[in-house]
């Protein structure tokens, strides 16, 4: 199957290893993957700031880059959700609608479309899973603690297949990290406090790594960990799933 790889703008610029891991993992799992080189961004930074009306040309570019693929896969719940909820193109609405239906966050693509049974990866470490809100509450890739409903988690089901990985339980399994896009600078005090509290929960459980499906949350948590000179590291879930045995 033909997969168009959508790499979030900041991942492309700051975390190339996450893009590489996503690409290699999908290839390993049998996909034909292409990275359209003219891609930029999903437009969420503008839209969440109240400027959705400025995202039209960004949307058109996205449609042009990705309309041709069977599936579009993205190693970010947040960017995927934005496309699903807000991608429109007045000149080519049919294509935009198609993209909204065939875009997947990486772990839900692996569990729901590829239906992978085994992940040939090894990561012998204590790992804490940060449930990024847009993937969880927006895309519903994991059950939410607010609801009276049976628990499940697509990313955790994949991590559980990784050899040697020890997943720890958090005191607050799905509290927001406080990144929130422009919120992280516009509401700096609350944002940083939320991040510090998330980091503290993971550290209390003695993790070596914090992982998740969204590098934006992890970038924020990493910023706090580094400031605290903590030995705990962040690692995107694609990097773990791509770690060779």
């Amino acid at each position, binding site marked *: 199957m033909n997969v168009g790889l959508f790499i979030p703008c900041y991942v492309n610029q700051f975390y190339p290893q996450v893009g590489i891991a996503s690409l290699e993992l999908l290839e390993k799992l049998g996909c034909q993957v292409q990275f359209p*080189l003219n891609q930029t961004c999903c437009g969420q930074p503008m839209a969440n*700031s109240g400027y959705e009306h*400025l995202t039209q040309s*960004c949307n058109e570019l996205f449609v042009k880059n990705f309309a041709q693929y069977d599936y579009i896969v993205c190693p970010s719940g947040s960017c995927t959700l934005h496309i699903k909820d807000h991608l429109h193109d007045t000149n080519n609405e049919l294509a935009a609608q198609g993209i909204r239906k065939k875009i997947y966050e990486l772990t839900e693509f692996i569990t729901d479309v590829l239906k992978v049974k085994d992940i040939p990866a090894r990561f012998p470490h204590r790992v804490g899973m940060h449930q990024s809100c847009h993937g969880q509450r927006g895309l519903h890739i994991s059950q939410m603690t607010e609801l009276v409903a049976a628990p499940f988690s697509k990313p955790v089901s994949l991590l559980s297949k990784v050899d040697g990985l020890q997943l720890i339980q958090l005191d607050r399994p799905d*509290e927001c990290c406080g990144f929130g896009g422009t919120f992280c600078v516009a509401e*700096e*005090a*609350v944002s940083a406090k939320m991040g510090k*509290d998330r980091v503290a929960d993971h550290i209390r459980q003695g993790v070596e790594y914090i992982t998740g499906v969204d590098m934006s949350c992890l970038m924020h948590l990493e910023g706090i960990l580094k400031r605290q000179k903590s030995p705990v590291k962040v690692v995107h879930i694609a990097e773990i799933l791509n770690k060779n045995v």
Partner: protein
Amino acid sequence: MNESSATHAELSETFNRDEERVDWHDETLWWIRAKRDKAAWQLPEWETLRETASQIKDHVLGNLHDYLLQFEKNARLNGISVHWASNAEEHNKLVLDILQRNGAERMIKSKSMLTEECHLNEYLSQHSIEVIDTDLGERIVQLAEETPSHIVLPCIHKKKEEIGALFHTHLETPEGNADPQFLTHAARLHLREKFLTRKIAITGVNFAVAETGEFVVCTNEGNADMGAHLADVHIACMGIEKIIPQRRHLGVFLRLLARSATGQPITTYSSHFSKPRPGQQMHIILVDNGRTNQLGREDFRNSLKCIRCGACMNTCPVYRRSGGHSYHNAISGPIGAILAPNLDMKKFADLPFASTLCGSCSNVCPVKIDIHNQLYKWRQVLTKEGYSPASKTVAMKAMATTLSKPSLFKSAGKAGRWFMRTMPWLVSNKLNPWYKQRDMPDPPKQSFADWYRKNRK
């Protein structure tokens, strides 16, 4: 009282200067969220109840006109005087008028967020009327000359030691005594005298039943009952959205309300008031104050389903770390942030941005208001209506241009990495709010696109 023109970001920055207090506030409210979860999990039909409540409220909002008239007719048949107020000012005047007609200069009031919204206490005190709040939390903030910071737990921002000091000043309790049981007893003695001597009592309304013309008031302290039963005149103030069609619908709402609010199966007192006792006057004031305007905003109308349980505040990670006063509005937290701009877009333009859009609020809401989606939509409305700083508009336009042109984006990305690698102080300085408490990511040698061109093309 202490409303200012400062924004949520500024007020919560101040709140965060005392990190220990932030931790305490966060943990206290998280404990209530956990109690709520436990109570919800005891009902296998919880999600069905939420859906049912949501549908009843949607139905009411779609037929509000008819239900209000039905309620008015039945309430009048019961002997209740029904008054209509189109805004806060009219509401306050109606209350003052009833007080003056009865020659009263003092009164007691149980919890009513509507009267907070209308700033009734301020208005009455300007007209030399003494108001004593009888809800313990509200009495505490009243003594402290503050406003409630939470709609269910008005003084949740205060530690017991602070309450002890406040009671020492106002109720002459011994200095340094912060024993909750002792302080509650002191408050009880203080309030009992007020209950026995005041002839006029105001209560809020949780539900007004159209079919019977009765209204229901829920409290844990019984203070609404004590006030209303002892007073010669009972005035109940309600927003027009509090209507439910039939008495049997209480079976849905009363089960949801206290579980969502505090994790209790039901409020200690859920009292039905249907007619005045012989010799008593019973008034009900139905208040619009922007509600019909909100009803006309399709994207925001279902915010009127709110039953004021406060669950969205308890679960909100931003609220827990900002404190209610940072929202500078009678109703704080996520629900306040979608209700307030309807009243005054300019004054409350900051509130829909005081959220990470994590969505936890919508999940706990017992009437399924899509709070986080409405926060997103308010951001768009406020920006289009011109309530966004000009500098932000300039930055956003530049960002939109860069992101819509791949060639520009590539050079912007390269420049960004170049700056970070060669001159990190240009980015990592005190002017950059990110850097205040967080380090920057290490700049990579190449972007993913660069790598891809070399390795896959």
